[in-house]
């Protein structure tokens, strides 16, 4: 095969690949795919997996302090779901030829990203339901779109994740409602959590379309199906009425209903903060990575022992056979 033949082959494959995508057919692990598609997906899926794993930490911070046994159980179960999501997202990324170990090393080395929202601290109990409602709520808006993403394993993982996240978001809202209907201290806690998580939640959708360079290719590949701003608008439109229902205030004086557009307008987002957090300079970037690294390091001997034991068992079986 000459280089010329290869080029022809790849062109043909790429064409066929794009036709499958245009026809809304799923790409499966064994299918041919462009290297860039594979890399983009690995980056996106592993980033998503890391977000689930790191995302255990802010809420997990309140497990030992939850104010009632029922809330403690809901919270524990939620954090468990996140670990589960991490697990099947890592698996989905592994179908693309990446290894979990490599992905985790990249996370700890600061090479791989995770959602910036988890770099904010949880400072009161209200942050727990606020995260469930706002953060999982925003995640769902993103992920509902991803349920129809072109890569089969990712799409199927997203369908499962979305189902559980919806449940979390509802539980989160219910938790906020309990506070909103509570005493003055609880109401204050509730509003304070909204104030602190509102902008970070909106920023979960990424930079504005004008500043989002990778979007066009991802849209074409149907890895991404809506623009950042479209998704953000969707989230704002569904969330503002919920804040009003709670009897709380949207922490944005410019946020109002725009009759003409049929959408809520919002004020200028604190982008400087957004980019600082992305760059690793958010309130908890240091602590989150440190916590993960520590857990990993302290788990080394456990993983080694499990492997050694497995090997011993296999050897035993072999020597019996």
């Amino acid at each position: 095969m000459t280089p010329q033949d290869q080029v022809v082959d790849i062109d043909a494959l790429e064409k066929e690949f794009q036709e499958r995508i245009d026809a809304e057919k799923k790409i499966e692990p064994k299918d041919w795919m462009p290297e860039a598609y594979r890399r983009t997906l690995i980056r996106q899926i592993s980033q998503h997996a890391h977000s689930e794993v790191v995302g255990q930490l802010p809420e997990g911070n309140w497990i030992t302090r939850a104010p009632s046994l029922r809330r403690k159980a809901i919270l524990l179960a939620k954090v468990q779901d996140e670990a589960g999501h991490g697990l099947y997202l890592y698996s989905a990324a592994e179908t693309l030829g990446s290894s979990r170990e490599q992905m985790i090393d990249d996370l700890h080395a600061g090479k791989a990203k995770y959602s910036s929202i988890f770099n904010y601290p949880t400072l009161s109990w209200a942050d727990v339901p606020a995260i469930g409602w706002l953060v999982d709520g925003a995640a769902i808006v993103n992920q509902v779109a991803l349920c129809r993403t072109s890569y089969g394993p990712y799409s199927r993982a997203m369908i499962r994740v979305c189902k559980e996240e919806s449940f979390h978001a509802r539980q989160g809202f219910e938790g906020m409602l309990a506070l909103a209907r509570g005493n003055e201290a609880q109401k204050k806690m509730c509003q304070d959590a909204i104030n602190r998580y509102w902008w970070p939640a909106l920023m979960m959708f990424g930079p504005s379309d004008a500043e989002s360079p990778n979007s066009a290719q991802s849209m074409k590949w149907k890895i991404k199906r809506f623009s950042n701003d479209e998704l953000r608008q969707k989230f704002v439109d569904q969330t503002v009425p919920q804040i009003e229902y709670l009897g709380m205030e949207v922490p944005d004086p410019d946020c109002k209903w725009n009759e003409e557009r049929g959408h809520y307008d919002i004020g200028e987002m604190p982008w400087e903060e957004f980019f600082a957090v992305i760059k690793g300079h958010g309130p908890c970037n240091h602590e989150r990575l440190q916590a993960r690294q520590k857990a990993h390091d302290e788990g080394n001997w456990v993983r080694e022992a499990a492997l050694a034991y497995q090997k011993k068992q296999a050897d035993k079986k072999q020597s019996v056979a």
Partner: protein
Amino acid sequence: MSDLTQQEALFTYTLRLADNALILGHRLSEWCGHGPFLEEDIGVINTALDLLGRCRMLYSYAGEVEGKGRDEDDLAFHRDEREFTNYLLMEQPKGDFAYTTIRQFYADVWNLHFYTELCNSKDETLAAIARKVVKECRYHFRHNAEWVKRLGDGTEESHQRMNDAIAEASRFVNEMFEMDEVDQVMVDAGVGVDLNVVKEKWIASVDQVFADATLQRPEPEYDRSGGRKGLHTEQLGFLLAEMQYVQRCHPGLQW
């Protein structure tokens, strides 16, 4: 003749089981997000959730038996250190993964045999709870027995860590088999479990798993005890301060 009424004994009996589940679950939940790998993060939370569910059923029932209108949260968040009745083993800090594994295994084996016996309780509610719980216990036992084997018969380091953990935990073991007046009243009434029976089975199960794990169960040089009388180690106070803080700051609210 005992001064304890059957109702008082049943309340205390149920409360003790609840306290054990709550405090052990609390220690386990401290691993959440910090486990050695993701699958075991999930595994640990799973057990913690079972323990939490268990303590909720038991607290609710205890509150009902007591008849003073205390609910699960009153009993969990508004009693102080001297009123908690869990075994001392449950409240010890989580330590490394070896200590957590050994502590959990010791508790799992106890729970498995205890709740198996409790299924025969003449108290319908306790028997019903036991029947539900015993299924979880079987799973926890299998899950943790595997870990004991993996870590005991894994690497040199893991074996050493398991031995250290066993040495550290063993002085808290015999407390789990002490029979006091409450136990006696409950056993006599056909409600409670004879802990001597549990002890025999506990030793047999632990020894069996330890044999596979190349570990040895030591006879402790001395025993610590007192949890049931609220005579705890200094660890519990800090645990409760953390666990109860929000409730204590804002008593009597809905969450």
